[in-house]
């Protein structure tokens, strides 16, 4: 296996608040990595650093063997990094299909019929085809989350970052979303998934990282990590000796 993403001594602080404290880890091509941590631990900031929305204070990020630390968000998108947002942020005045087309034409560089065909394929995969001509602003929460996924996939990503995509959904909605995410992973896309809905996360990922105060406090097999006293104490708030 080769590393698709490499973080080396990544540091980011907002004044006294450190959101990335010397983080170093690798993600292998084809992996599905889960990220757990309490609110404010720096999980979303980690995504912002990887996609280029935030610039690190120091350290470097490598993607597919290239140092992308100085690249703009748009360039990283072209290179194959895509993300979904915890709070869906569709282009609300545009239709679902137009939202998808922006990603397909701008990031994936497709044109005309090829772009349309790609969007249709993705919309079918994410089960939004029936809503293609609806304004994105009028979608339900589940549909908006699916649109986040659709747009990210339309960029033809190699690395997909999912930010609490299962949050706020009913159990049935969550299950159908898990099914879709498994499909995406099976198609060869590397996934990093931040999630508080632990059972959803564990049903997909094959590795888990736990962060707190911007530091990695655990990294490895999901089952072993969920059993570790340290994680139980910090993340689940259970006393270590309980």
């Amino acid at each position, binding site marked *: 296996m080769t590393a698709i993403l490499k973080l080396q001594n990544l540091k980011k602080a907002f004044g006294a608040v450190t959101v990335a404290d010397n983080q170093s880890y690798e993600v292998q091509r084809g992996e599905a990595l889960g990220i757990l941590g309490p609110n404010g631990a720096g999980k979303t900031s980690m995504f912002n650093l990887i*996609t280029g*929305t935030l610039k690190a204070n120091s350290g470097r990020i490598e993607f597919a063997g290239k140092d992308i630390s100085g690249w*703009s*968000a*748009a360039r990283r*998108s*072209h290179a194959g990094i*895509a*993300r979904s*947002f915890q709070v869906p*942020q569709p*282009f*609300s*005045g*545009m239709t679902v299909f*137009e939202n998808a*087309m*922006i*990603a397909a*034409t*701008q*990031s*994936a*560089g497709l*044109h005309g019929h090829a772009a349309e065909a790609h969007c249709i394929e993705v919309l079918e995969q994410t089960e939004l085809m029936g809503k293609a001509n609806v*304004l*994105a*602003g*009028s979608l339900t929460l589940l549909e908006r989350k699916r649109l986040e996924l659709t*747009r990210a996939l339309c*960029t033809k990503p190699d690395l997909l970052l999912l930010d609490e995509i299962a949050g706020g959904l009913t159990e049935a909605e969550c299950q159908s979303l898990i099914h879709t995410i498994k499909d995406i992973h099976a198609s060869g896309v590397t996934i990093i998934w931040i999630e508080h809905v632990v059972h959803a996360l564990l049903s997909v990922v094959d590795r888990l990282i736990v962060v707190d105060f911007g530091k990695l406090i655990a990294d490895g097999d999901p089952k072993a990590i969920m059993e570790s006293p340290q994680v139980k104490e910090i993340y689940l708030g259970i006393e270590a000796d309980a």
Partner: protein
Amino acid sequence: MDWLNAVVQGTLLGGLYALFAAGLSLIFGVMRLVNIAHGDLIVLAAYLGLTVTTATGMHPLLALVLVVPVMAAIGYALQRGLLNQTLGDDLLPPLLVTFGLSVIIQNALLEGYTADPQKLSAGALETASFGLGGLTLGVLPALTFAIAVVVIWGLQRVFYHTPLGRAFRAVSDNQDIAQLMGLNRRHIFGLAMALALAVTAVAGILLGIRTSFDPSIGGGRLIFGFEAVIIGGLGNLWGTLAGGVILGVAQTVGAKIDPGWQILSGHIAFLIILAVRPNGLFPRISA
């Protein structure tokens, strides 16, 4: 019949105001930039037309073939080289910078062309007229109105039926997300300014054929443009045309009552609409 004549003439004049306003509307819609130098850019286009026509002897309308691409290129360079740097969460820097730009353009025109009033000569077209149901309409005002309708229809097509328009709407909706979708915001803004100044070029040439101009008249054209945009509702191009028409009609009807009231009555109409419908008559439906 005199009143009907005033309304019809005002409507045709509104086409010119809509052309003044379309570029402003487009720029504000795409990048929330209020361009104080817009009126001076219209005058700049008129002077470019003057240079082309005097140098080549071309008809001013034919000179559009040169002036439109030159203005578009100026727009792209201006946006990438200067205005992009001023855009952010704060509305003040672009206001100040475009205000400064307005001063610079006026003074540069004064240096280059002197303060003498100039006019673009369009020959027989200027005085040609035709009869319509008892009214006599000038060919030039009618042509101006027709051009305004075509330009606005074209902008509307670009906005809603082309990949470029989709990109405009995406950056307008959410710049940060658009960047994550691989859109280069700076380039898209450059293209929007290029398109806006291409329209401005048309407005400038038609202005120069219709009336005499000197380097100082940009401010007045800016006000007419702003008023048309705000009457019509921000971000709505057909609304901008309607706004231009309302402004034009108010002016000609005002002038009919008393010739001194022409400009004033346009401003009064604007103030009334601003008071009654602060969002304009046809605000864009926001999601």
